[in-house]
């Protein structure tokens, strides 16, 4: 298919762009296969380049022959284009509509994008499971890397290499896989070096109504327990939801069959509920006419902050079991691809200082989200302005980022990256020139030949000139476990994302710059002192032979 077929009017002059807190721009609107471009063709004015993939929905309005298109983006920005001429406006609108809802993955921009920078470090090669396993091997010899899923037949949403207990053979893994939803048998998520406890994740067991059991599954997870020790199973669903799942063939671990495990149920919402929550929250944030009472009641009704609190609390609980109780943990919900990953990844941020560095955080996202099979393509197909009935869209990853931001707010000196890094990840998860977040699983990405045909987000982000923006000037590495507060008074609305386009951040940005400047200057002074000291010491030693009689 040619994009040209979809572009009825490639160019319109005299288009006026309105954006909140920015002067209006009049210029020429151009449509290309992947971008909406508005340029005033004057020097010193920035052009608008908007990826069609970033467009969540559009609205048209007409006053006489002047048409207006309101473009609502997945990054929550809303812009308005005034287009002279009814026909032009209709053409543009329908083109945008068509181009922003292309079904085929292979037509997405990453397949057409050619980087203008030299790829020094290929992001596709950065985080390979073998490397992570080497680290694990240096700490313990109780785990092995299994190739049972090398053709993705045992579990289509798992990667080809999986870390499993050494004593469990591949045959047992296959049997355990047949007992877990989607074949997602328990695998290692995190090894806590301090006390050797582990966190595993899986999907729900397929016990069904007649209480099926699977010896291999039991043996598999018991193999992770030390002699005489017990572990915790954290089911991210309420007991009622877990009970209901039995009717559809799912279920939870029965005490009788897993006597060494204690099950705890939490109440993280399912993905369709989360999508609803996002839509309501963004609606509340975008309505400038709210009185105080109405705003608070809308914020409450969206349930977003409640979701943040519940996810964070569950992650803290998992971390607490591992670090304070000295027990291993198995986390699962239903499919094991959403709430499960929120919990396991956040718990690692709390427990493992490595995850609070930029590289470590990238590795975490790679491990616990991309390779673990979070269905990014489905979940991020639409954002808060989707009109239609949600299919499988859900802000699961955004909620995770929100929770990370909450921890970052509480421990502002413990992260190597700043808020901009999290916002950037949010943007790229929804629309990007890079293909890191394309597809739903490793299997799909392999099939699409992404690593040969497209550029990884990490190849771009990790360039020093880009990283600059994402470094947290306050960062001072600490090797401690960081326990966030989950009291509602401690959890804030993530303004950087949800009010990003509704407020002027000039004052806040300048203050941030000033803070960075103070820190930078202090470092310079420290360096200066060190170099002067060295210089002095050197002179003194050179002098000393002369002084000694």
């Amino acid at each position, binding site marked *: 298919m040619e994009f040209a077929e979809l572009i009825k009017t490639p160019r319109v002059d005299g288009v006026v762009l309105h954006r909140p807190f920015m002067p209006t721009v009049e210029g020429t609107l151009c449509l290309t296969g992947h971008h909406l471009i508005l340029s005033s063709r004057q020097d010193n004015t920035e052009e608008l380049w908007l990826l069609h993939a970033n467009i969540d929905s559009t609205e048209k309005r007409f006053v006489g022959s002047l048409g207006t298109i309101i473009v609502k983006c997945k990054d929550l920005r809303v812009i308005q284009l005034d287009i002279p001429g009814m026909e032009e406006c209709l053409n543009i609108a329908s083109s945008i509509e068509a181009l922003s809802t292309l079904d085929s993955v292979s037509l997405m921009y990453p397949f057409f994008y050619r980087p203008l920078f030299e790829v020094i470090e290929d992001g596709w090669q950065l985080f390979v499971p073998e490397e992570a396993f080497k680290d694990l091997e240096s700490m313990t010899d109780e785990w092995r890397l299994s190739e049972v899923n090398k053709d993705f037949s045992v579990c289509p949403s798992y990667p080809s290499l999986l870390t499993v207990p050494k004593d469990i053979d591949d045959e047992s893994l296959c049997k355990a896989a047949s007992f877990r939803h989607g074949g997602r048998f328990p695998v290692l998520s995190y090894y806590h070096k*301090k*006390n050797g406890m582990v966190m595993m994740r899986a999907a729900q067991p397929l016990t069904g109504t007649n209480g099926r059991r699977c010896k291999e599954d039991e043996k598999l997870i018991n193999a992770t327990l030390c002699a005489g020790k017990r572990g915790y199973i954290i089911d991210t669903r309420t007991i009622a939801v877990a009970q209901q799942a039995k009717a559809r063939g799912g279920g939870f671990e029965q005490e009788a069959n897993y006597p060494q495990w204690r099950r*705890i149920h*939490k109440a993280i919402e399912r993905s369709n509920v989360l999508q609803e929550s996002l839509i309501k929250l963004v609606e509340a944030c975008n309505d400038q006419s*709210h*009185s*105080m*009472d109405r705003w*608070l*009641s809308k*914020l*409450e009704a969206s*349930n977003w*902050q*409640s979701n943040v*609190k519940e996810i964070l*609390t569950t992650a*803290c*609980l998992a971390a*607490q079991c591992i670090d*304070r*109780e000295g*027990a291993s943990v198995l986390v699962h919900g239903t499919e094991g691809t959403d709430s499960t990953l929120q919990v396991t990844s956040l718990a690692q941020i709390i427990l493992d200082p490595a995850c609070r560095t930029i590289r470590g955080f990238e590795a975490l996202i790679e491990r616990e989200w991309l390779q673990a099979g979070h269905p990014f393509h489905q979940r991020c197909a639409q954002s808060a302005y989707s009109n239609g009935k949600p299919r499988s869209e859900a802000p699961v990853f955004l909620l995770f980022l929100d929770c990370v931001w909450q921890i970052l*707010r*509480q*421990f502002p*000196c413990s992260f190597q990256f700043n808020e901009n890094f999290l916002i950037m990840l949010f943007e790229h998860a929804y629309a990007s020139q890079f293909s890191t977040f394309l597809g739903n699983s490793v299997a799909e990405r392999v099939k699409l030949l992404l690593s040969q045909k497209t550029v990884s987000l990490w190849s771009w982000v990790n360039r020093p000139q880009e990283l600059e923006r994402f470094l947290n000037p*306050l*960062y*001072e*590495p*600490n*090797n*401690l*476990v*960081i*326990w*966030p*507060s*989950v*009291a*509602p*008074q*401690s959890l*804030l609305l993530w303004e950087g994302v949800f009010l990003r386009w509704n*407020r002027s951040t000039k*004052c806040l940005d*300048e*203050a941030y710059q*000033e*803070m960075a400047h*103070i820190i930078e200057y*202090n*470092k*310079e002074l420290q*360096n200066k*002192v060190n170099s002067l000291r060295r*210089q*002095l010491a050197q002179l003194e030693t050179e*002098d000393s032979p002369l002084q000694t009689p």
Partner: protein
Amino acid sequence: MEHIRTPKVEQVKLLDRFSNKSVTGTLHLTATHLIFVESNSTSAQEIWILHHHIASVEKLSLTTSGCPLLIQCRNFRLVHFVIPRERDCHDIYSSLLRLLRPVSYDELYAFSYNPKQNDQEREEGWQLIDLAAEFERMGVPCDQWQLTDVNREYKVCKTYPRDLYVPITASKPIIVGSSKFRSKGRFPVLTYFYQEKKAAVCRCSQPLSGFSARCLEDEHMLQAISKANHNSRYIYVMDTRPKLNALANRAAGKGYENEDNYSNIRFQFVGIENIHVMRGSLQKLLEVVGTRSLSMTDYLVGLENSGWLRHIKAIMDAAIFLAKAVTVEGASVLVHCSDGWDRTAQVCALGSLLMDPYYRTIKGFMVLIEKDWISFGHKFADRCDQLDPDPKEVSPIFTQFLECVWQLTEQFPQAFEFSEWFLIQIHEHVHSCQFGNFLGNSQRQREDLQLKERTYSLWAHLLSEKQNYLNPLFSPSVAESHPVLEPSTQAYHFKFWRNMYNQYDRSMHPRQSILKHVLTLQESKRELEGTVQALKTKLQKFGVSTSPLKPQTPPRERSLPPRPHTGGERTVEGSSATENGYGELMGSFGSKNEPGVVTLEFGVARMTC
């Protein structure tokens, strides 16, 4: 002291408000403080509670572990003791009941507090703030405004200061006539002069207009204010009350200005609720944020139902209206409410702070409080419950003002010389009765109490530890380029001030404070700069010339050297798993207690003893 029945009780348990933790220690009762000393010798924490800070003491019914005593403080601290013997508990309880209800001013802490300063230092402390100099700074007296001696002996208005500024055309008979037509004699006077446009902010109380009464002198007075400003043909009269309240006041012979009787006024209701509504609102707010295992829904619903942020926004909206009228339209504004000492003080003070960068400095903020709150007779004694009082007079009016300022610091992080610690510390001392500044209800009463001779000034104390209250990001150049603050009043910009209302609930606070961090850097900056100088001098002795520091930018260190591994036992200060109550691990197996590290730092208002 005769009121203390039991000076010391041992084996007292202090329960944490939000978790199941408790510590054991000894409770001491002194003439001024209730002190809890933890027995654990290694990390023994001490809690000092000033009797004046105690708002209420409650003895709960006996439990198996002892007799619970619940103490609620005005600085939002809530402590829950369990005293083993009921007898002791009762003694402490009844002693406290007497101690926290002083019957005369002489019993207040300020009259016994002695910071070991001599008389001269004390006097200098009181001379720090000079309101005459402040009016001079604004450009008053000038060709349109003059100092009047009409209230020199407090004869016209008992609750006003002696020195008052009025339009030069307002003669004494007009002033006296106008004062008779105003509630409590509080006639229109100048509080802030915006030199750039010669526009004035004046304040007064409501007119005694009833349904039809009028007063020519009062009308003249407003005319005089209007004429003093050539930039505008009209003045705004802001009645800061909701219209309904003002209407109701008419029945009592009070009310508001009739636009037909006053020429060239633009009358405007603002709709800030009265002291009773505010008191109830804070009570509701505190109930919500003091709830154990509070859910997000209950928190947000409770926040909304308390109405607290709505009231804060109303005050802010009024102040913005005032600032716009003065700075944009160049019009003078007369502000009043009922008596002109609560809402009027809030709006005038906040409005001036928006207009004038001086009030956003540490010294300037003191001046502002001294002017609009202390000298113009905000009834601190009644509102803050200093002497055995009428509970209906108590209201967090001044607290709201401090909060509005805090909300502004959140929107304009570089506009203020001080940080929120300054605001919290002022709040602490408004209630502590440790310094003389806020005692009593009016200047006249303060003079009668001879506060300047018998007590110390808070301002001197705060200035002496100024470095603790500095905002390291403050930028005077921003103030120069944007002198007038134009805050957004979108509802979502108003936030719950956790560090005030939950200031003692450390587990809720960020575990690493950016403010503290940057302040420390500022401190070490000075030190490092000194070291650089010293090293350079030494090097010069070796005949080495060194380059000046500034222009030289050494290559940035990208990777910071990792810190030595510090074992796994420590936690980031105050951050612990058990305190947060993530989940009840009922009958958890082999759960270990963790070392709790809780130290007081700045940010929690500290007692100065």
